[in-house]
C-alpha cells in the first residue's frame, strides 16, 4: 500500500503538533511515525526537518543511526532473536541457524509471502531463561528449535 504525500503531510503534521514544546523531540516523533505506519516513510523526513529547523540530511542521519527505525515496511510479523552472550551460552546460534533455514531468509529479510521478518536483537533482559525472542513485541523465553517452530506456526 502506498501512502499519498498529502495524506503523509497531514498525519505527520498531526504527530508533530502533538510533540510541540517537547525537549529533544526527534526520537519520540520518529517512534510515533513508525508506530502509525510500521515504518518511517521517506516523504515524512522533509516535513520533520522543516518543523524542527533541521536539514533533511540531519533527520536522515538520526534515523539511520538507530537500529529500530525502518525505511520500508516489515513483514506482517516481526520475529527478533537475541544474539547476545547469555543466549549464546544456551544455544542461540543453533536456534538462529534453524530459524534462517526454516524461513529461508537471512537477518533483516522478510519471507517471500510477506509474513515474517527476521531480525537480530542484542539482549531482551531474559538472560536467565535464554535463548530469548521477541514476537510482535511479546517476549518468549527458553526458545529451542521446537518452540521456534511453534512460534512460526502460530503466526502463519
Amino acid at each position, binding site marked *: 500500500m502506498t501512502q499519498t504525500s498529502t495524506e503523509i503531510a497531514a498525519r505527520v503534521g498531526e504527530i508533530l503538533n502533538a510533540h510541540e514544546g517537547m525537549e529533544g523531540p526527534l526520537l519520540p516523533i520518529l*517512534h510515533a511515525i513508525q508506530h502509525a505506519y510500521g515504518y518511517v516513510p521517506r516523504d515524512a523526513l522533509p516535513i520533520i526537518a522543516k518543523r524542527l529547523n533541521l536539514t533533511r540530511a540531519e533527520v536522515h542521519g538520526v534515523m539511520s543511526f538507530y537500529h529500530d527505525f525502518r525505511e520500508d515496511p516489515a513483514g506482517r510479523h516481526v520475529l527478533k532473536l537475541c544474539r547476545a552472550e547469555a543466549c549464546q*551460552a544456551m544455544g542461540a546460534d543453533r536456534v538462529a541457524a534453524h530459524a534462517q533455514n526454516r524461513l529461508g531468509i537471512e537477518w533483516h529479510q522478510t519471507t517471500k509471502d510477506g509474513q515474517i521478518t527476521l531480525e537480530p536483537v542484542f539482549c531482551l*533482559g531474559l538472560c536467565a531463561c535464554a535463548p530469548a525472542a521477541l514476537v510482535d513485541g511479546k517476549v518468549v523465553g527458553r526458545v529451542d528449535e521446537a518452540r521456534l517452530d511453534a512460534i512460526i506456526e502460530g503466526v502463519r
Partner: protein
Amino acid sequence: MKLYVPRDAAARGLGADEVADAIMAQAAARGVTVEIVRNGSRGMVWLEPLVEVVTDAGRLAFGPMTPADVPALFGDLTQHPKALGLTDALPWMQKQTRLTFARVGVIDPLSLADYEQHGGLVGLRRALGMDSAAIVAEVTESGLRGRGGAGFPTGIKWKTVAEAKADQKYIVCNADEGDSGTFADRMVMEGDPFTLIEGMAIAGIATGATRGYVYLRSEYPDAIEVMTEAVAIARKAGVLGASVLGSGHAFDMDIRTGAGAYVCGEETSLLNSLEGKRGVVRAKPPLPALQGFLGKPTVVNNVISLATIPVILERGAAFYKDFGLGRSRGTIPLQIAGNVKHGGLFEVAFGLTLGEIVDGIAGGTATGKPVKAVQVGGPLGAYFPRTLFDTPFGYEEFGAKEGLIGHAGLVVFDDSADMLKQARFAMEFCAIESCGKCTPCRIGAVRGVETVDRIAKGDAAAIPLLTDLCNTMKSGSLCALGGFTPYPVMSALTHFPDDFAPAMKEAAE
C-alpha cells in the same frame, strides 16, 4: 482467594499470562472469587512462572507453573505437585540482603498504597525535611557508587550538580540496560517502579533539578508500560509535580524510549540521543554534571543507583555502608544468567567470591557439564576461568584481575564454549554498535574481527597483532565501548590459549 502471578517479562516469557488466564477460568468454573495481583518477580527465574497463594501462614510458592497445574491450586495446597513452601523461607530468599529489591515481587507494582505500606516514600519525606547539602552528604557517606558499571561515587556527582549555577538542571536515569546477562534495571522498573521515581525525586531536591527523564531501551516493552503508568499515578498523587508531596519543591519526569543502539548506554551518547541527535559519544570534559542535557547541569545515574537512594534516606547512610567490602559498600543485585541451573536476581552485600556465586548460588550449569568460563559485567567484561573463582565480588577486586563487575551480570558458559568464537563476537559486536566517533573503536573493531579470523585459520603471527590492537583500543578509545572490548578478547586469549592454538584449530577443521 488472593494470588500473585508475576507480570515480570521473564515470567511472561515463560507463560505467566497463560497461567493467570487459567486461574481466572478455573475460578469462574468453580464459582470461587479470586483476586490476582500481577507482581514483579522474586528473582528465581528457574521457578517462573512462580505463583503465590496468600494463606494465614504467609505466601505459599508454587512453580514453575503451567496451566495444567492450575486446577490443583483449588484443592489441598500441601499436596500440590509444584508446592515449594513459604516463599520467604526458600533458601534463595533467605541468603539475600534485599535493600534495593526489598519490595520487588512483594507488592503490587502499580499500587502507591501498597508501596507506602512497605516503606515507600519514607526516604523522600525525610529528604524534604533536610537541606540540599545534607541530602548530598548522606548519599556520599553511604558509599554508594554508580551501579551502571563505572563505579563513580554517586554523592560526588550530585555535589557537582548541586553546586553548579543554572536556570535549569536535570536528572537523567540511564535505563538503557544493554549488557547481556543483566536485567536488574528491568526487574526493578517492572516490579517496583515507584522506588525509581522516589529516587529521582530525591536526586532532584538534592541538586535543584526540577525535570527528569528515564531513557528506557525499546527492547523492554513491559518496563516501558509499567514505568509510564507509574509516572502518571505518581503525578496524580502529587509525588511528582509543581509541589512534591506539598513541599513547594517542583519535580516532574517523563519516560523516553531508546531506539536499539547499545552505545546509548554510555552517558554522553545517551544525552545526545535524548536531545534528538545521533547517539554519538561526546568528549569529556565538559562533564555532563556541568554541561549535560541541552548543555545544562545534569545528573546521569543508573536505575539501580537511583532506586537505592530511597532506602539510604530511609535507613540512613551508616546502615547501608555497613554492608560490603573494601571500597565497595552496600549491596549489589547479582544477575546470574546464561548456562546456569539456578538463574535470576540475587541481592547480597559485596564480597562473595565468584566461585561461591557460580558453584554455590547458581548450582553450576543447566547442562550439568563443567563450567568453563564466566563473563562478568556484560559484553565488555572479561571471561573468568575457574582458576580465578576465588576473586571476591567488588569493583577494585575484579579490576585487579583485569576484569570489571560492570552492572553485575554474570554469564556462565559450560565446556562446549569456544573462547576464540567469543573473542570474535566481542569484536563483531563492537563493530556493529560503534558510534563511529573515534578511530580505535570504529576501525579497530573491524580489524579485530579480521585478525581473530586469521588466528582461527592457523596464523599464529596474528596473535601479537591482536594484543597490540587491543592495547590501542584500550588506551585510545573515547568511551568504554572501544576501550573495554579488549577485556573479553584479551581474557579469552590469556586464560584459554588452547582455543587459539593453531594446531588444534587445524585439526578440528
